Every structure is written in C-alpha cells, then in structure tokens.
C-alpha cells in the first residue's frame, strides 16, 4: 500500500498501515465490527451469556433484593408499636457505597427479610413481632411482599 498523506497536515508522508494489505485490513475490520455489534446478542437475546461476550446491561441489577415499604412492630396482642422504613429496620442511615452485588442482606425470598431487618429483630421486647408490607426489587420490577412475622421466618427460603 502506498497511501500518502494529503497536503495540509504537513509533509506528504506515507500512512502507516497497521495491518499490511488492504484485503486483510478489510477482513479484520469486518470481523471486529461483527464482534462489537453482534457480541451481546447471544446473551441479551437468547440467554446464552458468556463473560467473554460483553453484554450492555448496566445497572440492571441495582436495587434487586432491596425492599420498599414499611416494617411494623406489634405487641403480642397485635397493637401497633411503631413503623420503620427499610433503612431503619436494617439499622442503616443509607445503603453502603459498594458494589450492589456484594450487599449480603438482599432479599430474594420472604425468608431473607429476617436477615435484612436483623437489627430491628434484635431490638424487640419479649412478645413483640415485626411485620412487613410492601415490595421487593426484582429484575422484573417491584414484587409485592407481605410478611406477618419477619423475624420468625429466618432461614425460610419460600
């Protein structure tokens, strides 16, 4: 290849082909372009994910397993002793600034809620119990969740 720089940028100097041979460069360009454009298709269209074919699903898992709603503390006779936000029940001022995938107290089943609300459960007086009314984040949106006795359900993987 004898490509030369056009006038206007300085002297006419040979352009350095990074892959010698026009045909080979065309083949490489086409192959890389196909990888870039179609690489995510197996995972995103057909569910055949591979870590080596990067899928563009940024932030799609953030908030999954995080509850939205209200925790309520009740006495043995059923009287309401106070309501708590999810953050208050988890004993947090805010969720930690870390990768969401490593937050261990996420809720994937009703039984996980006891782990999420462990600080609130630990603070209960004898005879009290905690209920939850609200939703939990899933990849399909908010999933309704209603739990009568949060703390007693620890270990339940319903």
């Amino acid at each position, binding site marked *: 290849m004898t*490509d030369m*720089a*056009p*006038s*206007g*940028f*300085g*002297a*006419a*100097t040979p*352009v*350095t*082909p*990074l892959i010698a041979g*026009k045909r080979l*460069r*065309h083949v*490489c*360009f*086409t192959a*890389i*372009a196909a990888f*870039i*454009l179609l*690489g*995510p298709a197996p995972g*995103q*269209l057909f569910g055949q994910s591979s*870590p*080596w074919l*990067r*899928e*563009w*699903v*940024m*932030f*799609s898992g*953030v*908030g*999954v397993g*995080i509850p*939205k709603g209200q925790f309520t503390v009740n006495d043995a006779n059923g009287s309401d002793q106070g309501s708590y936000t*999810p*953050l208050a029940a988890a004993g*947090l*001022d*805010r*969720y930690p*600034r870390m*990768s*969401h*995938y*490593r937050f261990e107290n996420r809720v994937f089943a009703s039984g996980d809620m006891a782990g999420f609300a462990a600080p609130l459960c630990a603070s209960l007086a004898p005879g009290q119990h905690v209920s939850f009314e609200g939703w939990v*984040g899933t*990849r*399909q*949106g*908010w999933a309704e969740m209603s739990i009568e006795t949060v703390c007693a359900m620890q270990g339940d993987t319903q």
Partner: protein
Amino acid sequence: MTLPQRLSDTIAAWGPDAEGSTRPAGLMRMALGCIAFVRFGSDLAPWATNGPIGLILGVLLFYFAFCTVIGSRSRQSIAGLGIMIMVLYALGVTRIGLEEWSHHHVYVLGIACILLSMTDCGRSFSYDRYRAVTDTPPGGVIPAEHGMLWGQRLIALQLAALYFWTAVDKTDWAFVSGQRLEQTFVWIHSGRPLEVLLDWPVMMALASIAVLVVEYWLAVAILLPKWRKAAIFIGLTMHASFYVLLPVNTYSITVMVLYLALLDPRAVHGFVDRMLGQRPAEVTQ
C-alpha cells in the same frame, strides 16, 4: 458501478480505509491514559497490592499508561495498556482479581485502548511527534499529522453498539414503567439528599422512557452526519447527568472522551489550529 459496489466502496472508505488528521486520536490517547491512572491507581499502586503478581500488574499497567499519556511508542503503548486492562477484566470475571474489574466501565476503557491502537494515534500530541519534528533536518519537511483511522471508526461502532444493546436491555415493562429506575434510586439515593426523587414515580417513568428513546436514537444518530451535532450534545448531557445521579465510576468520562471518534477529524484539526492562533490548514480529509 452497481449499487452494491458503491455501497461497499462507501463503507470501505468510511471504515477500513479511513484516514485523516490524527489529532482526535492523539487527544483520545492522552485522555484514556489519564483515565487508566485514575481508575487503577488505588487498586494497583504498591501500597494497594498484597503480592508480587499485583505489583507486576501495577508496574506494567502504569508503565504503559505513562507511555500512552506522553505518546512514547504510542501505538504499542496504548495496545499494551488495553491488553493490561483486558487482563484485569478477565481477572475480575474469573474472580481471581477484584470483582469491580469485571464491570462495564473497565471493559469500555480496555477495548477503547485496543481499538485506538489501530490508529496512528502517536502522530499528534506525543513524544513520537516531537521526535519526528526535531529529527527533521533544517529545510526538511515536517511529518504530517495524518494517518490510518480505522480503529477510530471501530470506536464509533462500539459506542453505537453500546447504546443499542443497553436500550434493548431496557425494553421491558419493568423499565418503561419506571420501576427499575426507582429500584436503582432506592439503593443509591435512600438516606441521601436526592431521596426526594423517590416521591415522584411519574417522573421516574417519564425519565425511563426518555432514556430508552434517547439510547435507541443515539445508536443510529452518532453515525449519521446530519444528526451528529444534536446526538453529541444530547449524549454528553446524558452522560453528565449520569455523573450526578449514578455511581458510574470512569464510564461516563470514558464515553465522553470517545465522542472525539465521532467528530470529523478535519474539524478537530482546524479547531486546534484556531486555538493555537493559526489559520486552519487546507485539508482534504
């Protein structure tokens, strides 16, 4: 000439045969090297590593990043930097390294470096350029800031693919209804100043629809000259808003830098000339 032939020639001229001013590639090279320093400084500096392997990874990565920024053996340096970043990505994917290394912002940075190595990115704003100029004998002709740009075109395709596939991921009721955005904001903004946004679910839905439409549009518009100016403005605005609203790490700044690959190299060349108080050279590409 038949229509398929004309189409083939047009694509070839835009893609594998593309050449022009290397100033946009030079600017991208320096910026990507700096971003690599920022992203991995706290992961691979000697004070952050626990063993010889981490130390070796750090030394190699920072050596290539340094050479990339100053433009010494530019193409080899940025190729080395890209390979090192992809090695870290692989270590993250396999959980041998930090899990964060498997995130999309690391992949974007790594693949961009590798693709940029397929341009003559050392012919502008580099030590390579300085050497080429100073080595020119008196009365000789100064080397041109001109070279192959097919890697720059691949970066443009990477951006288009990124927008398209992220839009595909969002094309479901959970996102369009605002639920997924609300979940994201619950995690990120609960107990923080912007928690008030969670009181506006309708706004969440509208913002979700806007993001979806913009991302599908950007996937095409960034490649079409007639829409490019608007696409760049809207894209930059969107990525700037990501910085305010989401913990995007180096993702947004990397993509913003890569927007240089979308610009007409002649325009960037002329802009730099004007900034330096010179009359833009007459260029053909």
